[in-house]
């Protein structure tokens, strides 16, 4: 019989008490009610563990660096023991041909039953020669591993959108996962960010492994539970925005007082991510809290949208207080009197605390 997640954890020396605590934490980070913790525990005790094959293309490894520094040490240990990270060139023990053989082994042994995590993207120019893994273009390894996987996670902005290596003029034709021609038609979960927030990464993996299904995704393929609100919506400096209290220069009194950075180019109003709620480094801070505007690193093509310090002026870029689906890059429909009440209630529901909502309810 195959090992369960729980077996693996116990073998790694994780106590049952820690395991149950992890289940509660996971439920909380997924925005589920505490009553979901026993369900997570049950799933992990009974389901065979699913291997995760973690490939690296053109990238800087910031996604891996973020992931292994997940704020809660328990979450990190548990997730790392859950994942069969036999092949992750940042942290695997094997090297050379032995390492490459692991990819074949997982593909053969777990055909159709492993998760493919992709960090970075594949350059397609010159037949893929700008990224060679084990003597072959990365794009070939990616296609080969995708052929037999169950689902794909595109880690970070590189795999999700292309990021800096795909910025104009993109000489290597760096291409995000979902745009690779000829890639097997598998579900793709995009977890953008440069890097993504560690707790978001571990929660996405935990969700996939425990519930054995994809989290609810928005139209752009991002998990709704973490990417349905803008930085702006939950920014602790938001009252300053609404009261017109703006920083005008980096060294003015408003900057010292921690006023809104909109005029200094903050991209919070157009960026969908959980930085202002989950924050970084064990919830310690996030860019705006340290005095710099959001650069919108989790948005498609953020390198090509002008200076990080240029004020947002394209009002069509502004979202309404809706999830990304409703904005979709175009101006939102104008609401007349007839449907205004509905819009008000929808906004109310969206502003309600996540763990107060019904699981699976529309965000």
């Amino acid at each position, binding site marked *: 019989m195959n090992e369960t997640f729980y077996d693996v954890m116990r073998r790694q020396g994780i106590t049952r008490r820690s395991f149950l605590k992890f289940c509660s934490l996971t439920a909380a980070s997924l925005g589920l009610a505490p009553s979901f913790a026993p369900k997570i525990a049950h799933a992990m005790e009974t389901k065979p563990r699913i291997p995760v094959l973690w490939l690296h293309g053109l990238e800087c490894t910031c996604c891996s660096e973020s992931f292994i520094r997940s704020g809660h040490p328990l979450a990190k240990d548990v997730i790392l023991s859950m994942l069969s990270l036999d092949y992750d060139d940042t942290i695997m023990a094997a090297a050379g041909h032995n390492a490459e053989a692991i990819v074949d082994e997982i593909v053969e042994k777990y055909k159709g039953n492993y998760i493919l995590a992709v960090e970075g993207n594949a350059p397609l120019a010159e037949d893929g020669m700008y990224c060679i893994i084990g003597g072959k273009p990365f794009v070939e390894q990616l296609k080969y591993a995708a052929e037999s996987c169950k689902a794909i996670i595109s880690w970070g902005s590189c795999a999700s959108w292309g990021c800096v290596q795909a910025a104009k003029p993109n000489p290597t034709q760096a291409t995000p996962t979902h745009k690779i021609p000829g890639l097997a038609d598998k579900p793709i979960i995009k977890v953008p960010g440069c890097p993504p927030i560690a707790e978001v990464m571990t929660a996405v993996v935990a969700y996939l492994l425990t519930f054995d299904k994809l989290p609810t995704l928005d139209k752009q393929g991002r998990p709704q539970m973490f990417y349905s609100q803008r930085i*702006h*919506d*939950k920014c*602790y*400096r*938001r*009252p*300053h*925005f*609404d*009261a*017109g*209290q*703006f920083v005008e220069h980096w060294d003015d009194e408003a900057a010292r007082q*921690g006023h809104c950075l909109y005029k200094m180019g903050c991209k919070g*109003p157009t960026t969908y991510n959980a930085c202002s709620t989950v924050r970084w480094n064990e919830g310690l801070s996030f860019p705006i809290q340290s005095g710099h505007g959001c650069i919108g690193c989790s948005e498609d093509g953020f390198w090509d949208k002008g200076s990080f310090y240029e004020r947002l*002026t394209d*009002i069509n870029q*502004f979202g*309404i*207080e809706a999830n990304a689906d409703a904005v979709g890059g175009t*101006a*939102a*429909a*104008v*609401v*007349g*009197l007839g449907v*205004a*009440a*509905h*819009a*008000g*209630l929808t*906004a*109310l529901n969206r*502003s*309600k*605390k996540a763990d*107060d*909502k*019904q699981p699976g309810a529309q965000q």
Partner: protein
Amino acid sequence: MLWRESGQIRLALETAFNDILDARMGGLPIANTALSVQAIGFNRFNEDWLGVLLTPWCMNLLLLPGSDSTWCGQASGTSIERSFPYGTFEFTLGSETLLGMYAQCSLFSPMFQFADQAAALAAAQAALQGLLATPEPRGISRRDLLRGTIGKH
């Protein structure tokens, strides 16, 4: 600031935010010119005054402190949670010279989706009514019954 009744609050809010509109929002592409500043509600809810503030650039649930409110001494930017019949909401503290401390929870920003003031007002009223209305009960389980947790969500 000592708040005594809803009329006084609405007037103070409208004055303060009209000043903000004139003095600080000029030239910024974030205001819907079809809309104007309006404060809605601001009756007592527990120890606070609760209402909706509608401006050409945002719509927020707003709490102003009553004499027994415990959050006035906290720093701007701090989050507090408040429970209503509709559910629990997180408010962020802010302050303005004419108003003192207040707590806000964002509903809309910006406001370009509203065709006119009537539409924005209807949305604000619906949100305020919805917040105070008790939602339909969930399916009641035997477990909830035995734990005595019915009606606590």
